[in-house]
């Protein structure tokens, strides 16, 4: 009996050990996975295969290089692989990427485990985590790209020489090295006031240019539609004050250079402009002109104001006009949302402030210390190619006859089975083909097809308007210790400011009362404002030297 019991235990251990000695072959699992999607994949593989056959590009590289690539997945946006991008990498660059998907919601957990176990791939495909990427570079995991930039002339040509240098200053880590390939920003502005034009036309309402006019307008709207929330905001105090903050020329709650005086402002929290913005927001709140539950409001609540036809005007991303119309159309078939080509301003005579964007987005490709020289060369070649017209068109629009067609006027348009907000809202998304994720520039056709051309319009409008002003950006330059300390202080300052700002907006404290305002400033000082201001000022001064 004893022997048998011991044998049973040994059997348990043996089974475990035998199973553990399995290789990396996950065929059974793959079979299960494949069964559900095989049909879809086959059909796509056929189409892409046909297209590749027609447009086959002979690779200048003789041997195939296989590399691991980390792919950041947002939601369930996982390409059907092998995608068009896989095909193109193989055909043109003779590169095969073995994808390692990583959910962006668990980025830190997974990446830390990978780094600690040295189980990380050669290529980081378009990571949108600038701080983490810089830290990985500083820790020696990533290849510094500075010396390779000259080998990517088409990539460099995405910017003017001056903008390229500025981009380098902004995107380099504190050791001066660039550890990722920033992506070109196709726009310089994206926000203004979106408004329900159909209702404005029907009621004869004028667009406001000053806070006073805005208040009058909101009051009129509320009188005409008592159930409305004339100026909904997206939840939270920062969104609630954003339009008024810009109206009072406060570019940021943290540091910025004043658009008019050129003076450095360490913290927008302490400015008179913010105080005025809070005064108005308090009035809007008390008169029921904004969401009374803005503090706890979420996206669903915000969306419901549009879906119920209660929204009329908001400082928002201009491309949301399409979203606003789509949500409101079930209750207002004739609804039309437009955006202003100016911003509300506290001083109409001096013009208005707009939030100017940099010429780059702080994300792109990174390459780890595991990559071979040849692998790096080919991937940089890939980065350079997708910066050309041909490559960017491929990454944004896909393959002619498979995902897009050429119109008579020469513009490109997604084919009928692809997503389009009006032609086919339920169509296939570009990411299913591997496109878009990993772009380094967006083409004009793409921005038009996905409803982002409004960004170009507003950028051009602001750029052409002499009344439009913006704060010049500067690359903050801190040491690693300063960065760490500043992050700590900023959290404390933001928490303290948020507490007081809510009390100001909701009327618990009177923002016009000097005693209350001084109490707020003192609280910020206690939270470390002075020390943080010094660090920010030093960082600004260093950038000017």
């Amino acid at each position, binding site marked *: *009996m*004893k022997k*048998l*019991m*011991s044998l*049973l*235990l040994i*059997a*348990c251990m043996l089974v*475990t050990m035998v*199973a*553990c*000695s*399995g290789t*990396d072959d*996950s065929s059974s*699992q*793959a079979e299960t*996975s494949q069964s*559900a*999607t095989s049909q*879809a994949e086959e059909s796509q593989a056929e189409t892409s295969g046909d297209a590749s056959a027609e447009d086959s590009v002979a690779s200048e590289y003789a041997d195939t290089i296989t590399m691991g690539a980390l792919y950041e997945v*947002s939601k*369930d946006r*996982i390409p*059907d*692989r092998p995608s068009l991008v896989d095909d193109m990498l193989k055909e043109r660059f003779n590169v095969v990427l073995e994808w*390692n*998907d990583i*959910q*962006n919601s*668990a980025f830190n*957990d*997974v990446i830390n485990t990978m780094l600690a*176990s040295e*189980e990380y791939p050669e290529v980081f495909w378009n990571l949108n985590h600038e701080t983490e990427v810089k830290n990985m570079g500083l820790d020696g995991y990533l290849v510094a790209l500075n010396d390779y930039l000259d080998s990517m002339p088409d990539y460099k040509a995405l910017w003017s020489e001056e903008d390229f240098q500025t981009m380098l200053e902004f995107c380099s880590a504190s050791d001066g090295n660039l550890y990722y390939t920033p992506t070109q920003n196709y726009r310089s502005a994206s926000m203004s006031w979106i408004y329900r034009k159909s209702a404005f036309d029907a009621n004869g309402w004028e667009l406001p240019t000053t806070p006073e006019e805005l208040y009058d307008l909101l009051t009129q709207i509320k009188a005409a539609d008592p159930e409305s929330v004339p100026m909904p905001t997206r939840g939270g105090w920062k969104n609630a004050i954003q339009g008024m903050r810009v109206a009072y020329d406060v570019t940021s709650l943290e540091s910025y250079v004043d658009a008019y005086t050129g003076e450095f402002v360490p913290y927008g929290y302490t400015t008179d402009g913010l105080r005025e913005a809070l005064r108005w927001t308090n009035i809007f709140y008390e008169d029921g002109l904004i969401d009374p539950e803005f503090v706890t409001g*979420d*996206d*669903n*609540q915000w*969306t*419901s104001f549009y*879906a*119920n036809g209660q929204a009329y005007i908001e400082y928002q*991303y201009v*491309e*949301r006009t*399409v*979203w606003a119309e789509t*949500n409101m*159309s079930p*209750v207002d078939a004739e609804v039309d949302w437009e955006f202003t080509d100016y911003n509300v301003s506290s001083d109409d005579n001096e013009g208005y402030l707009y939030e100017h964007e940099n010429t780059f987005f702080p994300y792109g490709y990174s390459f780890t210390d595991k990559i071979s020289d040849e692998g790096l060369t080919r991937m940089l070649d890939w980065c350079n190619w997708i910066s050309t017209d041909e490559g960017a068109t491929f990454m944004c629009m896909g393959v002619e006859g498979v995902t897009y067609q050429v119109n008579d006027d020469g513009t490109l348009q997604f084919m009928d089975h692809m*997503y389009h*907000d009006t032609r086919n*809202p*339920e169509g296939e*998304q570009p*990411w299913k083909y591997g496109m878009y994720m990993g772009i380094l520039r967006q083409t004009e056709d793409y921005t038009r097809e996905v*409803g*982002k051309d409004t960004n170009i319009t507003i950028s051009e409008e602001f750029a052409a308007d002499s009344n439009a002003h913006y704060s010049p950006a500067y690359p903050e330059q801190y040491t690693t210790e300063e960065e760490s300390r500043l992050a700590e202080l900023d959290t404390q300052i933001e928490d303290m400011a948020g507490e007081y700002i809510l009390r100001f907006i909701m009327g618990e404290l009177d923002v016009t009362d000097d005693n209350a305002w001084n109490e707020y400033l003192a609280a910020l000082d206690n939270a470390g404002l002075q020390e943080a201001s010094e660090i920010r000022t030093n960082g600004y001064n260093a950038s000017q030297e």
Partner: protein
Amino acid sequence: MVRDRSLSGKTFTVVVHVVMLFVLLVTLLPVIHVLSISFSSAAAINRGEVGLWPVELSVSAYTAIFSTGNVPRSFFNSVYYTVLGTVINMVLTTMMAYPLSRPHLTFRKFYNVLILITMFFSGGLIPTFLTVRNLGLYDTVWAIVLPGAISTWNLIIMRTFFMNLPVELEESAQLDGANDLTIFSRIILPLSKASIATITLFYAVSHWNNWFNAMIYFKSSKSYPLQTILRSIVINNEMSEEMQVDEVIDSVSAEGIKYSTLVVSMVPMLVVYPFIQKYFVKGVMIGSLKG
């Protein structure tokens, strides 16, 4: 059972029923709300009109999630991992619990202590990851099912149940010529249906709800189970600051997608429960009484 017909007894019964009704409502209402949203139109969801009954009945959210391929694939992955993992769990747990329950097992105390230690100390994430990788399990289904093949807690419950089975049963079987394997498979296991059903459920639910291991140990998201996909959808469901390409969809609401995926993830466990309920009540009492 003798029913207490006194006033205090009746009062107690009423209070118990009221409390249980409250618990039932608290549990059931969110589920009904989730179901209602999943079967409502996007417009009704966005208008915030959906309560406990679907508004503008629609299955567009289900159509959307089943048309992408990710949810059906991950659903089958979940079923696969749950079935495989639970079978391994049960085989190993019962085979280990039985010898440990026998008083004459050599070094029995030593084995028990060795096993108990793992309840209080674990290697931590990175050492476990390194072990899994070095054993060649990384990016295979075995990374999901083997590291937790035996749950110490469930093993102890099972062992306690086996300990309560009369030794005389074994002795009489031995007199009839049965060997240990026969005794285990033809006497012990059939007498342990309640505990086996309960522990099976514990293991199955644990596998079904597991999302983290898949995210750590699988390279391809095509291998993800439903819970990993669901978590991603739920956590990332908030709209981006800027509009995303697929955000303007007039027939499917993001909320609808989220809740329909939730329903899909709930259904299998809801289906399994009634079949093992009769064992479950008995099974969860295992170990609570000695003697």
